[in-house]
């Protein structure tokens, strides 16, 4: 219990002092997570929509494969990307390893399946009558897609929130591809792992509390985006 008490006080102290090291860590974390989630959504939502909306031969198989990818361990992704971008790898000359870009690449592999998969289930849940009514009212394909996406926005934004949660909490990829370099690629999670290794448990838990505080703030913003839906009244 003492550990938790000390940690809460340390977390508040660090936040109030606006500690420059902590600010760096938080900025790197949010920056990387923001870009991963943004690119992940730009790729994942349209793909999920296409798979859900169209009928094709191997659809069930594709969905099963996507769901399997949800279990892909971050260490495996880290190793895979590492082997491509290390100095001796195929893309070694780009000097990507141990940069924020490298983390974003790894995290995209992690979350694109998450976003596709959850988008598919959000879209599949929309009543087919939306589609037929839109069509009878003379909507073109793009307009139909818009109607369906608008109806499914709660689920789609939930997919993006899940993806954001996954990347900001993830440590394997950030550690292996980012390298935990202070001020460059040190994120909240790798900083916590480091403080644990150093035996500074108080600081590790304090960072965890800061992370949860930011996650809460960001989820409030997402919540406003989702807008009012049936879920409010349940």
């Amino acid at each position: 219990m003492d550990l938790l008490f000390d940690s809460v006080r340390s977390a508040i102290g660090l936040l109030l002092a606006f500690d420059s090291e902590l600010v760096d860590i938080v900025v790197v974390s949010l920056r990387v997570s923001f870009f991963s989630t943004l690119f992940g959504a730009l790729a994942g939502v349209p793909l999920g929509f296409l798979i859900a909306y169209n009928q094709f031969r191997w659809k069930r198989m594709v969905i099963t494969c996507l769901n399997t990818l949800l279990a892909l361990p971050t260490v495996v992704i880290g190793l895979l990307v590492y082997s491509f971008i290390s100095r001796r790898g195929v893309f070694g000359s780009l000097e990507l390893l141990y940069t924020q870009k490298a983390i974003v690449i790894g995290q995209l592999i992690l979350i694109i399946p998450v976003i596709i998969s959850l988008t598919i289930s959000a879209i599949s849940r929309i009543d087919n009558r939306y589609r037929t009514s839109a069509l009878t009212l003379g909507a073109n394909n793009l307009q139909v897609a818009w109607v369906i996406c608008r109806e499914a926005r709660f689920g789609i934004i939930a997919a993006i929130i899940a993806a954001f949660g996954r990347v900001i909490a993830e440590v394997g990829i950030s550690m292996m591809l980012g390298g935990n370099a202070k001020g460059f690629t040190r994120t909240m999670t790798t900083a916590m792992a480091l403080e644990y290794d150093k035996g500074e448990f108080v600081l590790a838990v304090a960072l965890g509390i800061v992370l949860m505080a930011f996650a809460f703030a960001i989820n409030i913003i997402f919540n406003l985006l989702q807008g009012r839906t049936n879920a409010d009244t349940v």
Partner: protein
Amino acid sequence: MKRLLAIGVALMLGSFTAGNTLASDKVLKMSTTTSTEASGLLDVLLPALEKDTGIQVKVIAKGTGAAIRDGMDGNVDVIFVHARDREDAFVAEGYGTKRYAVMHNDFVVLGPANDPAGAKKQADVSSALKAVSESGSLFISRGDDSGTHTKEQDLWKQSGIPVEKKTITVVKSGKDVEISTIRPANSDAWYVSIGQGMGKTLTFAEEKQAYTMSDRGTYIKYKFGKTPAIDLEIVSEGDEQLANPYGVIPVNPAKHPEVNNKLAVEFAEWITSAKGQKVIADYRLEGQQLFFPDAM
């Protein structure tokens, strides 16, 4: 490497079967630094120990900071670390009973083969580090509060380069405690602190073709015992300041009654005896002597 792996597997299997059938009361918990484990020394030292005394050692390998912390928390019976000042403090504060000087090896400063900072030409380690800092070449620091990191901070302090001290305040047992680290002043552009183990730091420095500091054992392992080998070369070695003494400290049973002090002392006495010291002196890694006995 294969041989080491085989020994490791054999050890693991051995500890499983032996632990279940006999002498389960002769199991010693030891926190040590990653360098003793990664160097492979423990793979020959511990079987010799078990043969002589029947003591089995459960090894927890961490950075020196975390290993000392384990000792302070009474998680282990004995610690085997290398950070002289902190070891003395550990004993002075009553966490350990006595420090046994076991052995030493040395640190080396490494850099890319083309040596853009011209550190190889320098007479001693202080001027080599000065050359690195003036050239603006990248320097990778362990930054993990380990023995190697502690040493590196000492070296920067002694080199005469202006250093800056970064302190943060956390609360421990209701009291404010300061944690500080030292690094060269205004070094944001070239000093990279990654907070990882020695092996990862070498890989990082290799990737970035940067300078770094390592214990000789881990360096030999990555340079001669690994394919593909790293390209980094030694740019400074042999300076007195680079010596790296290791000590064994039994955890004080007065602080933590649950620790097995008798076994810890037996271990410390064996490792500083003629037999233990001979194993250390005879150990070769890729044909090179790594550790020099201190107790004889």
